């Protein structure tokens, strides 16, 4: 693997880390906001549990964001990951000279 390939892998890794951090920030905001809403609901008589609507509605968006951050990849990232696996396999099992 040459420097150019290493730089490409590093770039893909940085992109993935950033995407995951943005999702974790989203998750933190989701939790903080909804806990506050539950608090408001409890302090205002704990009547009809209206707080479930933002939890469910926003939850759909949160799950979609999580899927993008952890499950889906750009085509470039898929190609790079495949190449990284191929290089790792080649290193473990070098071609035998006959």
């Amino acid at each position: 693997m040459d420097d150019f390939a290493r730089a490409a892998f590093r770039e893909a890794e940085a992109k993935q880390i950033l995407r995951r951090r943005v999702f974790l920030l989203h998750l933190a905001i989701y939790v903080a906001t909804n806990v506050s809403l539950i608090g408001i609901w409890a302090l205002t008589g704990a009547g009809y549990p209206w707080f479930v609507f933002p939890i469910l509605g926003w939850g759909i968006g949160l799950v979609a964001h999580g899927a993008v951050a952890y499950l889906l990849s750009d085509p470039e990232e898929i190609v790079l990951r495949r190449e990284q696996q191929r290089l790792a396999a080649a290193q473990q099992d070098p071609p035998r000279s006959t």
Partner: protein
Amino acid sequence: MTRLFRRGELKSALLDALDVAGPSNGYTIMQTLAEQIGESWQPSPGAVYPALLALEDTGLVRGADHNGSRVYELTAAGRQAASKLHGTLEAVATRARAAPPAPSTLGSLLDDFVTSIDGRHRAVDEQSKQAIAAILDGARNNIERLIGKET
């Protein structure tokens, strides 16, 4: 920011660049692209390397290790494809020149600087820490002076 390259166009531009520059390693190919297209677009290994791998997969480009660096060259099929794609780089360059330059912020410049530093998670000893802090302090003062002049 709009994408400069249309779908599949980066691969065509790479074939065109290899046709222009001859057998080259990744950085030379990026340099050729940057020179042809101009300063408004900064190529990155993260975009160029996967495109080169895809071209290798389709048999248009052949890569060979040479002195610790991978050198790419067009295959016969690649040369044939490149002859049909001649002018792709020029077309992208024309479009790049027509596009308004992306606005830079101080934050984006600092982000670029941080990500460009190799081994930034490496621990440093006390002496290096002080020297680095002094360099960064100097840079901050200069930047603040410059920004102060502009506003």
